[in-house]
C-alpha cells in the first residue's frame, strides 16, 4: 500500500521533512509506526498521536490508504 505521511512540530524536526510517501506491506497503523521508528530513531522518545484521514486513530486501526499524520501535543491558543 502507498501511504502519504505528514509530520508536524517537533516530529518534523526529527524527520527533517514535513511530508513523505512510503510503500508498505503491513495492514495496521502500528506496523507503519514500527517502520518509522526504525527510520527515525528519536521518534521513540516523543509523545505523539496519529491521525488517519484527519481523524485521530489508535495504533490498532487498519490503514485505509488515506493520509496519515503524526501529531505532537497540541498547543493552540
Amino acid at each position, binding site marked *: 500500500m502507498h501511504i502519504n505521511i505528514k509530520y508536524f512540530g517537533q516530529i518534523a524536526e526529527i524527520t527533517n521533512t514535513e511530508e513523505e510517501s512510503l510503500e508498505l506491506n503491513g495492514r495496521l497503523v502500528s506496523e507503519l509506526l514500527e517502520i518509522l521508528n526504525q527510520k527515525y530513531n528519536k521518534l521513540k522518545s516523543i509523545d505523539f498521536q496519529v*491521525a488517519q484521514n484527519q481523524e485521530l486513530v489508535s495504533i490498532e486501526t487498519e490503514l485505509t490508504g488515506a493520509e496519515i499524520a503524526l501529531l505532537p501535543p497540541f*498547543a*493552540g491558543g
Partner: protein
Amino acid sequence: MKDKKPKSVFKEGAITSDFIGNSIYKHQTKTSIGAHNIFLGQVRADEIDGKTVSAIEYTAYEDMANQKFHEIRESAFAKFDLTCMHIYHSLGTVKAGEICLFVFVSSPRRKVVFEALEFIVEAIKADVPVFGKEIFEDESHQWKVNS
C-alpha cells in the same frame, strides 16, 4: 442572524487590537444581542531555565484544524443560543505580548455567553492540531504543550 458558514480561522501573524475593535464595531448593528464575551490568548514572556520566551511560532495541520474548528462551531451553535460566533487563530510568528487567539461569542442573554465561550476555548485547546515553537531571546527554542 445565525452565522454558521465556515470561515477561515487562521491568520498570518498576530491578531491586532484594531482587528478586535473593528469586529466589535461590526456587531453594533445586531440589536438582538445583549451580551458579548471575548477570549484573547496572549503570548507570555515566560522565563524557563533563565531564558525568556520572545515569540511563539505557530504551525498547524491546517486541513484537520479547519475541520475541527468547524465541528466546534457546529456543536457550540447546537448547544447554546448564540447569535454569532467568531474564531481567529494565528499562524507564523507571534511575539510576546501579542494576541494569538481571538474567540468572540454573542447572544441575547449573558448566561449563555459565559458557558459557550469556555466550552469553545477548551475545545480549541484540546482538539485542534496547532503546534507552538517557543522561541527564546537567544534563538534557541522548545515546543509548547497545552496544560
